[in-house]
Every structure is written in structure tokens, then in C-alpha cells.
């Protein structure tokens, strides 16, 4: 077992609100870890800390062996965070969105095509503007761009929200494939039933602490 995320006593604030009040978390490579808890429990902030996006005020931590206090920038290139927003450009088509991300990492057109096919946003959908997509289609587009970015840790915030039944199965399959290919998945969800079948381990986040 090799830990890819190790957090100790992490405090992170949003403005002056302590979203995380001293949290410990360890994630092993190849896990599908589910973070459970009610809304406002700090799941999103925890994911953002793991992604190197939210600076921590106190405590210490390492992600992929990189220190989160001093070298957040190095973490970012190697993890993929999909938050409440999908990070899409609404005036670009599905294909243009994914092509843009591919250009930032130098992924080939073949990789783009295969990612779109895997997330079922190829064909007719490829030419549709993101602003005209349904919530589920947007999410699938965002996931496809995550594939072309070749993220080692996937941090997913409510990934099942807005997906229909087949989309959810598709996503579960995709996440299992990704783990089989060497990725680690951390997902936050309050739909425990759904995600439990997928997750290999469950951690409850509540009031800024983790158990």
C-alpha cells in the first residue's frame, strides 16, 4: 500500500469561516474513497485542499509526496478536480472544450476522440455548445477533459449529480476502469447508497472533522 494523500490536522478557511477544522485523512493508491457527510460538512473544501487549490492555514499534508503548504503548484498538474462547476466554456462546443484542454497538455487528437467516445459525448453532441447541454452531458464533457489531462488522482465532487441512470452506470464503469489503469479516485457524495457500491472505503466528514 502506498499513500497518495496524507493530511494531518489541516485547517482551511473560506473568508473567515473555518471550512475544515483540523482534519486527518490518508488515501492509498488505487482506492475509490467516498467522502460522506451532509451539505456544508467541508467535503468540497477537503477536495480543494487535496487538489492544491485551497491553501491551508494550519496543519500539514502531502499529496503524491508533494508538500501542500509549500508546493501546491506542483500538485495541480497531476490531479484532476471536478467541482460543482464543470469548468467548461459555455460558448464553446463539446469538442472545442476538450480540444482546448488537450492543447494545454499536448494530448493527441486520437486521445481526444477516445475520451469523447468513452464518455459518450462524441457524434452529434460533439458539435453542440456547452450552454445547450443538459447537466449530465456537461458533467460527461468535463470528465472527458479530465481523461485527456491524464490526472493521477481524480477528485470528484458529487459526480453523480444530474446524471441519468445509464449515465451513472457509465460513470461507475469509467471510474473502475480509471482505477484499474492506475488512478486513485476520491469522491464526495451524500448519495451514500449509490456510491457505496462503487467505493472501496468510506470516510465520514462532519463539522470539519473526519472519521
Amino acid at each position: 500500500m502506498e499513500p497518495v494523500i496524507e493530511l494531518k490536522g489541516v485547517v482551511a478557511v473560506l473568508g473567515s469561516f473555518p471550512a475544515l477544522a483540523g482534519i486527518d485523512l490518508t488515501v492509498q493508491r488505487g482506492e475509490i474513497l467516498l467522502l460522506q457527510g451532509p451539505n456544508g460538512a467541508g467535503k468540497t473544501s477537503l477536495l480543494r485542499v487535496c487538489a492544491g487549490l485551497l491553501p491551508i492555514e494550519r496543519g500539514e499534508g502531502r499529496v503524491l509526496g508533494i508538500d501542500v503548504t509549500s508546493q501546491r503548484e506542483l500538485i495541480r498538474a497531476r490531479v484532476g478536480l471536478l467541482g460543482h462547476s464543470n469548468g467548461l466554456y459555455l460558448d464553446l462546443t463539446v469538442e472545442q472544450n476538450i480540444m482546448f484542454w488537450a492543447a494545454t497538455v499536448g494530448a493527441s487528437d486520437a486521445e481526444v476522440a477516445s475520451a469523447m467516445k468513452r464518455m459518450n459525448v462524441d457524434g452529434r453532441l460533439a458539435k453542440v455548445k456547452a450552454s445547450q447541454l443538459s447537466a449530465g452531458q456537461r458533467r460527461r464533457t468535463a470528465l472527458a477533459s479530465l481523461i485527456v489531462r491524464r490526472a493521477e488522482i481524480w477528485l470528484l465532487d458529487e459526480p453523480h449529480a444530474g446524471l441519468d441512470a445509464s449515465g451513472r452506470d457509465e460513470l461507475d464503469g469509467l471510474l473502475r476502469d480509471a482505477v484499474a489503469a492506475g488512478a486513485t479516485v476520491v469522491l464526495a457524495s451524500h448519495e451514500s447508497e449509490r456510491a457505496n457500491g462503487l467505493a472501496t472505503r468510506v470516510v465520514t466528514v462532519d463539522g470539519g472533522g473526519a472519521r
Partner: protein
Amino acid sequence: MSTHSGTGTKATRGLGIIVLLMLIALAFFGLVFSAEDVVQGSTVRIMYVHVPAIWVAYLAFGLTAVCSAVYLSGKNRSLAWDRVAGASGEIGVLFVAVSLVTGSLWGRLTWGTYWVWDARLTSTAFLFITYIGYLAVRRLGGTHRQRARRSSVLALLAIVEIPLVHFSVNMWRSLHQSASVADPNAKVQLDGLMLFSLFLGLFAFTLLFVWLVLHRQRTLQLEDAFADRGLDAAIAARREEAVK
């Protein structure tokens, strides 16, 4: 709780008394003892507050830039540097405002108008607005460190921009309009006592600036500490919630 009251110490109180005495002396020298100017008459007496005010403003913005640079380059990035930068920037804005107002009153007497599009006046106005922007950015919210980094970068940008704005405004006046309004200071022939009053003013205002910065950065430190204390309480409350 503290037994001490306020942001003063023995040293600042001593400094404060010296500053007060010097300012009273300045009023006597500037308004009573020093002679009227041959050309400008009594209007020259505005100079003894106007020139020291703009001097302190430059000093203050210089200090803001230096502290910002130290904050950004330092290894442990002490927020104290950021607070001194912020205190100094705020005081600088106050002194620019003073020098703009006294300057325009002086201008009304010597040029017959409150404002002329003279190079120095125009670039001072830009300076004023630039640092109002700096203070606005300091109040944007977020954590102390966010505030410190944003405002430090902005202060360093400002220190590069200002010479360029000044240079371009100068170029505008010298190339565009042949008849430039003469510099008011140039007309003044300073005798010994006037020169003494001016230097007294510069010295007194500089010490006043030091006194103000000391007090202001201490109140800022208290404000930061209280925000942190609120944070500590909120963290404790959240942990308690979690245990339940």
C-alpha cells in the same frame, strides 16, 4: 485582559509630545516669524504645510513599496510587513489629499485658479487615485495572506507605473503646450528664516508620519488578531459539532 490601554508606549508618547511641540513651533515660524515673499506675499506661508505634506506622501508610498517587497521576498512572510505597508499607504493617501487641497488653495492665489493641467498636479492626481485603488484592494476580503499577497503585488506595480505616468504627463505638457504654468516654488526666493521654517516643517511632518505609522500598524495588528481569535472560536465550535 490587558492592563495597558491603547496602542501607545512610552516611546510613542515621547515622540508624540516632540511632534506636537514641533508642529506648534512650525505654526509660529511659518505664520508669524518668517517674512513674506517678495513676489508671492503672504501666500508663501501655505508652502510650509504643502511641501512637507507631499514629501511625506512620497515617503509613505516608498515605505509601502519597500515593505511589500520585503513581504514578498521574505522566507517566512511575516504579516507585520504587510500591515506596515497598509498603514503607510493609508497615511500616504491622507497626505496626498492634504497636499492637493492646500496646493489648489495656493494655486487659486498665485494663478487665479484652483486647478491647472500642469504636469505635477496632474500626475499627483493620478498618484492619489492609484493608491485609493490600492486601499480598495486591501479591503477586498479573504484571508490575511490573500490580502497581503494581492496588495503587495499591487504596491510594487504602482511603484513602476507611477514614474511612467509622471514621465508621460511631463512629456504631454512639454511637447504639447508651449506655455506651461510656472512652478510656484521656483518663484519663491527663500531667505534664511523661510528656509528654516520649511525644513522644520519637513522634519516635523516626517516625525508625525513615523508616529502615525506606529499607531496605525498596531491597530491593524489588533484587528488581524481579533479576526484570528474569531477564527479560533469558530474552529472550536466546529470541532465540538463534529464530536457530537
